């Protein structure tokens, strides 16, 4: 049951409710290593909640959730799932990167310090080596010159690329993107999508909640369409977007495309 971290996600009969409102109802999903899965759907359909469950920002009510081949956040015993200690959960989280809609860079740290935050503050790595690696990662996302800038001095697109570099600095097997371009002005969307595209080509497992249908079609391997807490349709990205089978998917895509 315990395998080495492998970049896969397996979800079975997952349920999650906020008070009386059930936001995820019986979710089943498999994501293979190196797969780029785009989750689309109307707002309130549970896509962000599902993504947040995948790295423990939301707890799960019931169901099986395996990330990187391990039960995520819980330990299975004969009769129950027991919550892991904060320390063990933190360890699991270091292997799942997260990129937020609102970037959530630490405003009290420079871009380079943000990227170094994981390796230095969490993994207690060597500061010099981390600085060197941060510089490489920032160069990769096209921000080699901006290491000493504070988030407030960067544009939204630049901040989001720093956030991606920060997630990459932990060498995660999986990166989750929660509407990474929704808070950007249209001109800056392209630069973030370009970084994500190059990541996908390097074989990173990516789960992307997005409204960018162009990105889903071009970069996505699979598309998951969610509505009202259910996965309505899942399949090859170009298949689902070009020739949706479910009527609900058809009507959604008609409106957004």
């Amino acid at each position, binding site marked *: 049951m315990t395998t080495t971290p492998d970049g896969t996600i397996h979800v079975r009969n997952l349920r999650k409710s906020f008070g009386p409102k059930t936001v995820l109802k019986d979710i089943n999903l498999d994501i293979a290593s190196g797969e780029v899965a785009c989750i689309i759907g109307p707002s309130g359909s549970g896509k962000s909640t599902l993504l947040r469950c995948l790295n423990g*920002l939301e707890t799960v009510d019931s169901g099986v959730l395996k990330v990187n081949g391990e039960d995520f956040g819980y330990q299975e015993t004969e009769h129950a799932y027991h919550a892991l200690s904060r320390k063990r959960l933190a360890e699991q989280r*270091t292997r799942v990167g997260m990129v937020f809609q609102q970037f*959530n860079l*630490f*405003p009290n740290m420079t871009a380079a*310090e943000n990227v170094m935050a994981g390796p230095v*503050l969490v993994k207690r790595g060597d500061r010099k080596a981390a600085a060197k690696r941060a510089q490489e990662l920032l160069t990769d996302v096209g921000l080699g*010159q901006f290491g000493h800038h*504070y988030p407030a001095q960067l544009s939204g697109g630049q901040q989001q690329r720093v956030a991606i570099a920060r997630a990459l600095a932990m060498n995660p097997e999986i990166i989750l993107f929660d509407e990474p371009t929704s808070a950007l002005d249209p001109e800056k969307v392209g630069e973030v999508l370009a970084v994500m595209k190059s990541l996908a080509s390097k074989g990173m497992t990516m789960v992307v909640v997005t409204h960018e249908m162009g990105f889903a079609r071009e970069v996505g391997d699979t598309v998951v369409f969610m509505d009202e807490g259910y996965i309505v349709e899942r399949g090859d990205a170009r298949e689902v977007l070009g020739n949706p089978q479910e009527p609900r998917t058809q009507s959604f895509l008609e409106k957004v495309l």
Partner: protein
Amino acid sequence: MITAIYKGSKESAGSMNAALKPRLRLRTPSEYAGWVLSIFVAIGILSSVLTNPNFRWEIVGKYFFAESILRGLMLTIFLTVASMALGTLLGLALAVMRSSHVKPVSIAASLYITLFRGTPVLVQLIFWFNIAALYPNLMIGIPFTDIGMAIDVNTLMGPITAALVGLTLNEAAYMAEIIRGGFSAVGKGQIEAADSLGMSAGTRMRKVIIPQAMPSIIPATGNQVIGMFKGTSLVSVLGVAELLQSAQLIYARTFETIPLLIVASLWYLVMTLLLSYPQSKLEQKYNRASSNLPRKAKAVQLTDPEGAAR
């Protein structure tokens, strides 16, 4: 006069380039009336202060640097610094407890805060001074065994100790609320970002939450320091020879009540003004991260200067 400016510019319209004409502010009669009134009041008060012999300014001058006054000032400063420092530490602990997910812990903290904010400091000070009436002996040792030692509370709780304990415990309650307010000003997204990197609760607190809470905690703490400085005058009721009590001790002997109260007041004023300078400096320091002014990069200087030029 005002209308004259308007008329004048109308009549000469065209004689001067309109784009170069200065734009003048409108001064209303009530503004001039305000000036005149304020100046009259100021002159009245000033002349009264300077001419009324009962102020006895020569006595003020004589005692301003008197040794016992300066010693009292030192004790006031010590009480302020010590009780602020201890109160802030205890307040931080209370703030962390108050935001705990463990219900009994957070309830305990909020009970403490309610109790100490809900009763007057003066009452608390007198209470701590008389605590020996409640617990004559303090046992230090292992509970429910005979191992340990007893301490006589009456000798332990002298006036200065009681003042320090009273001020500290009271201040902690206020600081706890200020610090907690600062914590809650840090966005939920910041906490999620720290969690998603796998930060421990301690690291998250030290590196993410506290630095970002500082800009809202610092100004409020500055106000607390200034308030505490003046608040120490309350401990004069315990017979602690701080600034006010030192002045009182002199005028009890010489009956120069007003001049000595002026001496004390002037020292409180001077210290308050001195304290507001570091406070504004600290505010600037903690506002830096959110400002657009680039700061000198720390150990990590990775870029060419043209990057900074943007």
